[in-house]
């Protein structure tokens, strides 16, 4: 539709020219060869100069700029990548250090515990020994006391019985005869009293 109008109006415009401006130059100025040579000359001149300047001076610069920007961007990307890798490595290192120190802390704790346990055991042993010694000594003492006990009792018995006799009889009795009787008695009844 638009195209139809387009071409119709072009046709119309030619018609218009023929009708109204027949007196003027007439037809298309493009077909008037008066300035053809001039146009060719100036075209070759301007286009040639433009081509030379563009191809020798400007386009290499633009391509250089594009190239250098590309390489710089690539370089920057590479550098960023490298830094990322570095940081990754550092992070790993850091993690390793942390886990290592955790292990170390663990082992130190364990060692300390073992040491403490050992200390406790040793001290307990020492204490046990001491206690054992003390017990043994006490037992010895008891034994000694137990051994001495019949003699003392005998003695007490002899003395008490001699005094009793003295009070009852009113005369001094020979100690040796009393002790002989007590000894005899105690030997007979010793087993009953002391459980030996």
């Amino acid at each position, binding site marked *: 539709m638009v195209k139809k109008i387009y071409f119709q109006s072009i046709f119309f415009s030619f018609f218009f020219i023929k009708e109204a401006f027949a007196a003027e130059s007439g037809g298309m100025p493009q077909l008037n060869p008066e300035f053809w040579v001039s146009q060719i000359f100036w075209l070759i001149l301007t286009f040639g100069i433009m081509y030379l300047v563009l191809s020798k001076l400007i386009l290499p610069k633009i391509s250089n700029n*594009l190239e250098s920007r590309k390489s710089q961007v690539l370089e920057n990307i590479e550098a960023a990548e490298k830094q990322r890798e570095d940081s990754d490595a550092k992070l790993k290192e850091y993690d390793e250090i942390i886990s290592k120190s955790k292990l170390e802390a663990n082992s130190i704790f364990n060692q300390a515990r073992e040491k403490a346990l050992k200390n406790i055991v040793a001290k307990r042993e020492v204490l046990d020994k001491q206690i054992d010694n003390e017990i043994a000594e006490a037992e010895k003492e008891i034994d000694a006391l137990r051994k001495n006990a019949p003699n003392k009792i005998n003695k007490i018995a002899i003395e008490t019985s001699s005094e009793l006799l003295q009070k009852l009889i009113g005369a001094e009795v020979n100690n040796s005869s009393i002790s002989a009787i007590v000894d005899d008695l105690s030997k007979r009844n010793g087993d009953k009293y002391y459980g030996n």
Partner: protein
Amino acid sequence: MAANPMSQFDVYRIGPEIKVGAFDISFTNASLFMILSTVSILLIFNFGSKKNSILPNKIQLLAELSYTFVSKMISDTAGSKAKPYFAFIFSLFMFVLFCNMFGMIPYTFTVTSHIIVTFVLAAFIFIGVTVIGFIKHGFGYLKLFVPSGVPAVLLPLIVVIEIISYLSRPISLSVRLFANMMAGHTMMKVFGGFVISLGIVGGWLPLSFSVALTGLEILVAFLQAYVFAILTCIYLNDALNLHH
């Protein structure tokens, strides 16, 4: 002058007449706009390539985007072998684009609306491509006219058609650009004329049409420059990589 839709294409002398032998090479309005286009291209790309900052400023971005745009266009259509011709195709694209765009400014002259200009460009491309083809492939370049897989009976006909199509390349290339530019600008002038003649009562319709046409013409200006450049790439591709 103003009322004639074709008078915008008039070439007139600016300054004195310059003659070299029998040839008149006077400075004209066409020359003026060729110089304007090339100077603005050179200025833009000069400023766009001066500083090389990692974050490009606007003009540098413009220059670099154009560079990558054209270089991608060439590598897509003609492959890596076309790299030595990058500067030429880039200049060609920029020259046609700027001439077209300068023509979109009111009261300017459109260099590319003249058949002689586009024909010289197209003829140069045609001759250049043909020479490159013969240099690269010798007489084997003539195989371009003999497509493979065609029955022998049809071959004479096909070869003739291929030769005609090959020879008509410069004509189609130049006429395409010239006709598009001329038709568009004529249209705009005609509708502009309607606005005046219909006055304040009926002039709004052609005015709105004219506004829409301006947008279309800017698109066409870019598109035709692109088509011109990409067809050059395709012709170059034929010469560099003989596929037939």
